[in-house]
């Protein structure tokens, strides 16, 4: 956190000065560890084993916040008798199909609801379309009435299922898998549990590197399970918080730059699943379900009205027919492979530098070199704009500048201080920022660029009667002649009552009949009362500690989600020290320091009538109001592709055989088995010893991601001027590496070179009785800028988490050797030699299901 989020880290320092204990768990000793009380080195890729150990510690010592767990989680609900755990099936849950590598999730359901479960086919489509992302603002569908055992004794209740699942994740196992000494591990368990409960809460803060694993979503799930068991959700000082990699990454999923989502986490229509408007709406609101998604039609119709204005009518389903449709996986990695295969002709890159910043840099560059045209909008001529003349493939002869057919259009972009707009940060808070200076030269804002691009395209299409052009021609597209007004756009996002022309003040005012508009329902209220609420800057000293008048948070300016859970089932604060939102019986309403996340006048004693659905079905003690059953999920009966409970799988590349299960790695991970995307062998495959070391990559404080914003600046470049690799003195001795000498690192994809930094900050770990060395690299360098160097991301292959299609880029296996790497054609031969020794022929298929396989043959199919 100190490395990548130094400004946020000031609050950790503040807490430390007030007596907080800081524990840092990381594969390497970083600037965060330097300030922590306790540092635990851990093996990269073994976090579920570590956190599963914490779950086991909580359950076996009964350290859970029992009243909270009973009231607000699904601990008491009974799971189907057909459910079988990974503990029964050697690392697979029930319902696995080795043909498609997906699950039939019917048996994961609550008792009596097996019919509600997802079929394999749906599961496959969900993986292709990363449908897990839709759950950012709500849970997946689940029926409301579930049999329970409030005594938590029934062996089929979630509490007992969870307890059995994690029973083997003992401190001994944590030590064997993660390399963390038991006493240090127990120190973490004791600190976390002692600081949770009625009187205290603990926050879990992670940075997005945690998500970049083939089990990334399940990492976060394990953290969420712990926080639910300890009563740390919906309460002040609790929560699970993601520190994003850039300003407004939260905003870019709220109003997404993702292929599968529309604003406000509405799903992008799928060609077969959502043929009609009603099918699409019903897929969002799930008619019999509890909760606020029952109003989905209002949100959806308002969005379409914002897009198409008067052209969106009830008769034409508000223009639903003009919406693009998903046909499968259109994620960024699938697209790159499609570029290589010649299926994609043109591409826009906006403030993104995949030639350096995305996994498998060579595939990224070869893909872009096979386009007809490419538009790059950035602050500088980044590697993704010059790969055709300066990229590493030019040296190897794989790209010949004279022959590369891609026509690159470089458009200078205004930086964040040169344009106005909002940033949305990890607390979902929008903060307006003013333009400080005019952009230099021909640089323009994104708003300007897209507005004028749209205008030109619409002029070209004017008069067209082709159906496919109507979506563009009918757009509301009127933002003046020059620079669009950012506030006008924010107002459109907020939404209007179209009958009066007034701005909406809350999404509850949205209507399903086309009389309201709104570009993103969760942002409705940001322009409440005609005031740009995101621009509020009342000092903390002039308001309560929650500071509701600084900026604006979605939804409804609520700073802590599910804050009904900060009061007990009767509506009283759990403790005076942690009071936050409570039921005022006299006034008959919810009140407190924050905006209550509950219907204002629904009493804690409210119980829904028989057969109720939607908001009416939310009981007075259903704190998790966006979940289909109103409860926080310790066990996810639906919605996750790889299983209802997190399970330790080895990373897609590991030299360690999974000590817990026959199943080596995530059996549902998304793989692209191609000759240009080979995976280093892992047990039970043979030859894993060719790549005997674990590597991880991350950022340095001094640089920004792919370097476009830092390697062009002398004051930052001088602070970390060269690509380097950190190794322990033990690994340096083993491989003959010298401090400040050269070394090169090799995987099945590439070999890159770096200066060696021998440091005690890395340490070998003892894993399963053997010594495992880890090495670490920053990933900021490329071929452009004041300082250049090889890119760490060239080493990484494309293997994705099945739920959200994020790449596994924080752990892999490699070799490291002293000296510079070969150059030119020799480099290709050198990497090929490694592939040959690792048994990775061009048609090699990495086995996905490994239960019952020991030292399988080379994995050929």
């Amino acid at each position: 956190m100190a490395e990548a989020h130094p400004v946020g880290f000031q609050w950790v320092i503040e807490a430390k000065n007030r007596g907080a204990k800081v524990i840092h768990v990381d594969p390497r000793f970083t600037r965060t560890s330097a300030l922590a009380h306790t540092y635990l080195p851990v093996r990269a890729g073994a976090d579920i084993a570590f956190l599963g150990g914490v779950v086991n510690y909580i359950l076996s010592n009964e350290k859970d916040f029992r009243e909270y767990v009973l009231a607000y989680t699904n601990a008491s609900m009974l799971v189907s008798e057909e459910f079988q755990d990974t503990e029964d099936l050697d690392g697979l849950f029930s319902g696995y199909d080795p043909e498609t590598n997906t699950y039939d999730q019917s048996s994961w359901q609550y008792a009596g609801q097996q019919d509600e479960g997802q079929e394999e086919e749906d599961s496959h489509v969900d993986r292709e379309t990363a449908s897990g992302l839709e759950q950012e603002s709500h849970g997946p569908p689940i029926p409301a009435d579930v049999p329970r055992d409030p005594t938590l004794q029934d062996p089929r209740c979630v509490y007992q299922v969870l307890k059995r699942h994690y029973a083997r994740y003992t401190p001994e196992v944590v030590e064997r898998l993660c390399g963390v000494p038991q006493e240090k591990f127990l120190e973490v368990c004791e600190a976390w549990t002692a600081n949770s409960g009625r009187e205290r809460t603990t926050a879990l803060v992670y940075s997005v590197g945690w998500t970049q694993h083939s089990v990334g979503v399940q990492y976060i799930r394990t953290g969420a399970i712990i926080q639910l068991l300890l009563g740390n959700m919906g309460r002040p000082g609790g929560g699970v918080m993601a520190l994003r990699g850039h300003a407004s990454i939260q905003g870019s999923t709220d109003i997404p730059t993702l292929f599968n989502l529309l604003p406000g986490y509405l799903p992008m229509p799928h060609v077969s699943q959502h043929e009609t408007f009603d099918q699409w709406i019903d897929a969002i609101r799930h008619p019999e379900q509890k909760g606020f998604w029952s109003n989905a039609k209002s949100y959806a119709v308002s969005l379409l009205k914002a897009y198409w204005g008067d052209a969106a009518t009830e008769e034409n389903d508000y223009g639903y027919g003009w919406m693009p449709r998903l046909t499968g996986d259109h994620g960024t990695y699938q697209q790159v492979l499609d570029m290589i295969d010649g299926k994609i002709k043109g591409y826009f890159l906006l403030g993104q530098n995949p030639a350096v910043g995305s996994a498998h840099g060579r595939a990224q560059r070869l893909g872009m070199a096979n386009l007809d045209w490419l538009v790059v909008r950035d602050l500088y001529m980044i590697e993704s704009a010059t790969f055709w003349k300066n990229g590493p493939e030019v040296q190897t002869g794989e790209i010949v500048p004279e022959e590369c057919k891609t026509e690159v259009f470089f458009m200078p972009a205004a930086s964040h201080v040169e344009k106005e707009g909002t940033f949305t940060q990890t607390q979902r808070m929008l903060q307006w920022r003013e333009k400080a200076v005019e952009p230099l030269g021909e640089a323009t804002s994104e708003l300007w660029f897209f507005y004028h691009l749209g205008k030109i395209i619409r002029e070209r299409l004017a008069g067209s009667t082709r159906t496919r052009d109507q979506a563009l021609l009918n757009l509301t597209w009127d933002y003046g002649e020059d620079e669009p007004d950012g506030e006008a756009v924010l107002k459109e996002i907020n939404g209007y009552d179209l009958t009066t022309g007034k701005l909406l003040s809350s999404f509850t005012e949205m209507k399903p009949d086309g009389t309201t508009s709104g570009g993103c329902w969760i942002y409705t209220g940001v322009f409440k009362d005609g005031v740009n609420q995101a621009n509020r800057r009342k000092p903390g000293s002039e308001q309560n500690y929650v500071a509701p008048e600084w900026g604006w948070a979605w939804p409804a300016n609520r700073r802590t989600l599910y804050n009904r859970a900060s009061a007990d089932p009767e509506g009283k604060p759990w403790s005076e020290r942690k009071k936050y939102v409570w039921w005022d019986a006299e006034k008959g309403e919810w009140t407190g320091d924050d905006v209550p996340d509950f219907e204002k006048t629904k009493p804690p004693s409210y119980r829904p009538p028989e057969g109720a659905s939607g908001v009416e079905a939310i009981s007075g003690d259903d704190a998790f109001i966006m979940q289909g059953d109103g409860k926080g999920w310790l066990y996810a009966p639906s919605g996750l592709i790889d299983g209802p409970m997190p399970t330790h799988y080895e990373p897609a590349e590991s030299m360690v055989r999974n000590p817990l299960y026959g199943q080596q790695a995530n059996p549902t991970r998304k793989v692209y088995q191609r000759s240009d995307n080979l995976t280093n062998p892992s047990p039970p495959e043979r030859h894993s010893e060719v790549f005997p070391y674990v590597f991880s990559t991350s950022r340095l404080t001094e640089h920004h991601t792919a370097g476009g914003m830092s390697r062009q600046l002398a004051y930052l470049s001088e602070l970390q001027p060269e690509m380097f690799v950190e190794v322990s003195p033990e690994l340096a001795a083993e491989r003959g590496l010298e401090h400040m000498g050269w070394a090169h690192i090799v995987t099945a994809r590439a070999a890159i070179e770096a200066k060696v930094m021998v440091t005690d900050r890395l340490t070998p770990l003892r894993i399963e009785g053997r010594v495992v060395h880890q090495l670490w690299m920053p990933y900021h360098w490329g071929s452009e800028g004041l300082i250049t160097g090889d890119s760490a991301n060239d080493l990484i292959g494309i293997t994705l988490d099945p739920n959200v299609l994020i790449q596994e880029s924080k752990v892999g296996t490699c070799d490291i050797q002293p000296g510079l790497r070969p150059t030119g054609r020799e480099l290709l031969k050198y990497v090929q030699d490694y592939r040959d020794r690792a048994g990775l022929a061009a048609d090699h298929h990495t086995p996905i299901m490994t239960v019952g396989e020991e030292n399988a043959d080379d994995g050929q199919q």
Partner: protein
Amino acid sequence: MGSNSLYGPIDPAEDAGYDAPPPRMGFFTDTSVCIGCKACEVACKTWNDVPDDGFNLLGHSYDNTGGLTANSWRHVAFIEQPVRGSQPFAGQPTGPSSVPATNVIAARSAAPTGTEPGIPPAVDALAAAATAGIDFVGGATSSGCGASSGGAAPSGPAASSPSSGQFLGMPMSDLPGKSAPAPRSDFRWLMMSNVCKHCTHAGCLDVCPTGALFRTEFGTVVVQDDICNGCGYCISGCPYGVIDRREGDGRAWKCTLCYDRLGDGQTPACAKACPTESIQYGELDELRERAAKRVEQLHEAGVPEAKLYGESPDDGVGGDGAFFLLLDEPEVYGLPPDPHVPTRDLPAMWKKAGLAALTMAATAVVAFAGRRR
């Protein structure tokens, strides 16, 4: 000029002739909360338009600035350090520490900073020598390209193998604290943002023949770049090795404590940018009180090694306008343990010089007397 003007506690602004000057301003840099982000270095350079000092990977942990020079007025030092007498590092299967070896290699890899004299090797060397158990590789020989060797066993020398050699040109087989390679002990990483000390008795100012260096009303010491003639006397006058000349320009440059911001009641750029309040700016008297409380707090929190550096008006420079809270001895951070302004010795020197002159005169008299004979 009072007798104290050469040495001891004074108010430097008053001493310089200001009538009722504003309170003396300074920095208190609390290294116990420094996270080594280097925002201070960048903010300083941006505000003061200081040039970069070259793109050199120094190999001294994350420090690629190297020291305070004419082109770096803030410098974040990084010290990787075994904790003496502690348990093996994190309880893991470890070999010997790399710290001494890497420090020595880093100390020998002087890099150009675009300034003169730039970073004195002694600064790094002090830090290197202060770490326990010096053992290092004989020479930083480059390894051959691994192209032909494939995954074969390495042939280069092992980095941790001790060998005799030279340390900064001197035989180094028995540096203080040296011992046989011991298993790695527990470990810490110290960070410290260094800066000009704005001494009460400023050696640089005392020797400046042009008046380019002057004492401001805030008690700070500033070089006027339109007066400096580049003579370089100030460089030998500074007990901390801070002030330095810029190549091509020849003039001396250093921290101004953002004199141009202070006049407007603004905080200096580095302190403004520091995210963790490691760099605190304020009235020196108040900062000294705050620092004393902080030391007390740290001692109570089980950090007995916390100590102040440069805060005492009774030290060799009459106290620093920019002082520090350190977590180890000053040498570990590359700071002189007992700095003193050259003028401290002036009275004694005058006495000696006078005596010498008398002796010489007497000798001459005797000599002449002898000749007459």
